[in-house]
């Protein structure tokens, strides 16, 4: 139960104290910078703008999922079904598109279904009282199955011009400097993050989320609407998974039965790498974005160095573990 957020004594003005305070509060950012430097030195292709933008593009979907997951973890819960909800949204939209529905309606229905799935998770956890791990595990299984039924267990191509446009569009680059344009998907993700960061910092909803996650009893005794806020967190997580599904549909062009399976674990990894506490109340979406970036930087670096794809998965798992262990050991030292 460490509360070392801004709590260093004011009278320690020594360089060492200032330095260690800076490191503790910005550890994620520092890790990112360190990795950029280390990987950049190790591979001359790493720091090329094209490559960096590639990383951004590859991490888009998990980044969006991780945003919703951060909200749920902040209030002390968890959502293991995000991969399946992503699949739900993408699947429903693809089916509607195939049957000739206008793209706007198809997207709307897809996002709505994901939002409803999120709300259902919230109700199962907060109203029915089932623990979050179990409840969202059930949703994980059921929602994927339901989607497969809707898709008749086949894969569906998404050929709608809108999706293709989203996938291809970039900002104009700077040809002379070899800087390609920023993909539209990346911009969408950044905008969503920007909105959510502002919401969490500047709105009542954001303040209530941190209060409930920090100490639900106090929040309740202070008259806050605990249940509605928690439900909203789960619902937004569903919506984010839906948005992830749309991005995925645009990126891959085909919705196949295994879409999104297993992504919940990478999502949680990104959130945890970003410094959000599983117990709730502490964490920032900006840092989750950094956490996702760290994850995909490592994957990208491994690909550049031609490490086989199979080893990449091992390395990722061990990386997440090491990061947590180091963080916990450091906490012990500080605490």
């Amino acid at each position, binding site marked *: *139960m460490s*509360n070392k*957020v*801004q*709590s260093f004594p*004011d009278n320690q003005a020594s360089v060492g104290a200032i330095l260690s305070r800076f490191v503790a509060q910005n550890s994620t950012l520092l890790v990112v910078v360190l990795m950029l430097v280390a990987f950049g030195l190790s591979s001359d292709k790493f720091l090329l703008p094209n490559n960096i933008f590639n990383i951004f593009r590859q991490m888009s979907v998990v980044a969006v999922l991780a945003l919703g997951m951060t909200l749920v973890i902040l209030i002390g819960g968890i959502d293991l079904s995000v991969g399946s909800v992503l699949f739900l949204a993408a699947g429903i939209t693809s089916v509607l598109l195939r049957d000739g529905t206008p793209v706007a309606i198809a997207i709307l229905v897809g996002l709505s279904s994901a939002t409803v799935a999120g709300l259902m998770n919230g109700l199962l956890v907060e109203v029915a009282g089932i623990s979050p791990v179990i409840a969202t595990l059930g949703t994980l299984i059921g929602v994927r199955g339901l989607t497969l039924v809707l898709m008749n267990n086949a894969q569906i191509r998404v050929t709608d011009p809108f999706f293709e446009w989203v996938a291809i569009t970039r900002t104009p680059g700077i040809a002379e400097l070899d800087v390609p344009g920023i993909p539209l998907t990346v911009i969408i993700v950044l905008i969503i993050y920007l909105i959510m960061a502002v*919401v969490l910092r*500047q*709105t*009542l*909803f954001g*303040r*209530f989320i*941190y*209060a409930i996650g*920090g*100490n639900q*009893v*106090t*929040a*309740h*005794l*202070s*008259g*806050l*609407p605990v249940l509605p806020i928690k439900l909203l967190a789960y619902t937004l997580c569903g919506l984010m998974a839906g948005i992830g599904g749309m991005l995925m549909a645009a990126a891959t062009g085909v919705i196949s039965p295994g879409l999104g399976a297993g992504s919940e674990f990478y999502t949680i990894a990104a959130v945890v790498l970003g410094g959000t506490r599983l117990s709730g*109340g*502490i964490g920032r979406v900006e840092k989750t974005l950094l956490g996702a970036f760290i994850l995909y930087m490592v994957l990208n670096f491994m690909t550049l160095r031609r490490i086989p794809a199979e080893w990449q998965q091992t390395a990722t798992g061990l990386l997440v573990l090491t990061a947590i262990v180091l963080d916990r050991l450091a906490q012990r030292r500080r605490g």
Partner: protein
Amino acid sequence: MIQPNKEAPILEMRGITKRFPGMIALNGVDFSARRGEIHALIGQNGAGKSTLMKILAGVYPLEEGELRIQGESMRFSHPRDALRIGIGTVYQDLSLVPQLSVAHNIFLGREAGNGIFINQKADRERSAQILTQLGIQSIDVDALVSDLPLAQQQLVEIAKVISHQPKILVLDEPTAALADEESTLLFKMLEGLKAQQIAIIFISHRFKEILKYCDHATVLRNGQLVKTFAMQGVSEDELVEMTIGERKETFFQQREQNATSEEIVLEVENLSVGRSVKKVSFSLKRGEIVGITGLLGAGQNELVRALFGTELEVSGLIRRKGKAVFIGSPKQAIALGIGLLTEHRKAEGLIVDMSVKENITLPSLALLFRQALLFIRNRSETQAANDSIRDLQIKVGSAHAAVGTLSGGNQQKVILAKWLMRDLDILMFIAPTQGIDVGAKAEIYRQLHVLAEAGKSIMVVSEDLIEILGISDRIFIMYDGQLSQTIDRAEASEEGLLSATQGYAHVE
């Protein structure tokens, strides 16, 4: 039957002194206990009883003074050492594992059997034996502890401690949460232990039972020994007189008596809360401060919490400004202009990881600092928080500091600031100055006066009789779930209050 015991005491503590930063908890206290006696340890809160027993139990290190068991000098570095020597302690928060059975709990960690297997039958038999020896008939050794009522859980805890075969048994307020019949059973058991020549040390506030069952008593006051004496022939008045003493703190200003108006802001009729509060009725006037006191477990906490909407099984009528209301949640209470500061500062009053500013403005955000429906007006929020910090003299570097870094007193001020910002009519406090330094205490009392003058109505639940005397206009005495007496400040005295809380008729 009290036999004068001529043999040397099994326990001798001499010149025990214990210092904490900024205060002396025990100052040269002598204490001894003999085999086969029940020795009461009496004193107000803060007198040093728990500290003394914690030194005995090895929880606090013995720094100054001497501790002898059966003549041998001892120094414990860990509670387990004390247990091994034969000192068993039963605390108020029980150390039982809820989902294990009685038998499994009693021998947890010491099960019969070898390194791998457990001999269940032997454990069950041993436990049954212990319970029988203690004269406990009604507990099934296979029952899950969590299924037992608190009184029986306590008996299991005692059985667990007894199974270590202690020579000295310390009980910390064992009857605080028990009903009369249950206490009687407990004492019957203690008589049995007495016959086995165990020295029993009994910390309690309840004079009636002390007079009835204990052989000897030691009274502490402000960390010093007042007297050790045999109970034979002692009267309740003498006990009262010995327990009270002049306190050095005299920072209560005289309140203007006429500040209280006659307007009634809250009426309570036949309020009952579960088994803790039984048909309490009273009315609260604008601008008055009501002090509520009683023995531990007399129902004062539950009464006040029920008025804040956190208790279940509440029945009776509550009227706010003449209109009947239903208070089913803190949100509803706050909407009715009622606030509560509980005794659990960090667990219920603050969000430790958030800043001082964020804590202070929490209940008021939606009401006062809203902008365009969703956003927080940062500047006015910070401004208001700074105003609060200044008004209450909260010692903190900036409003953005994490509240967890503040001292106890300042944390309490933050909680007070939180409710003040909401501008509530009725403020209720439970143990407002517990564990707070003298300076902050004075500050809080001053604030209470200010609030009352401004027309707020205040209820303070406290065990500190001096505090109750110092700030209240009227005093409610809670005894056994009922509002047994209402005393005006002019007629109140510390002795009178103490007697009243003990259940004796009000003594002038």
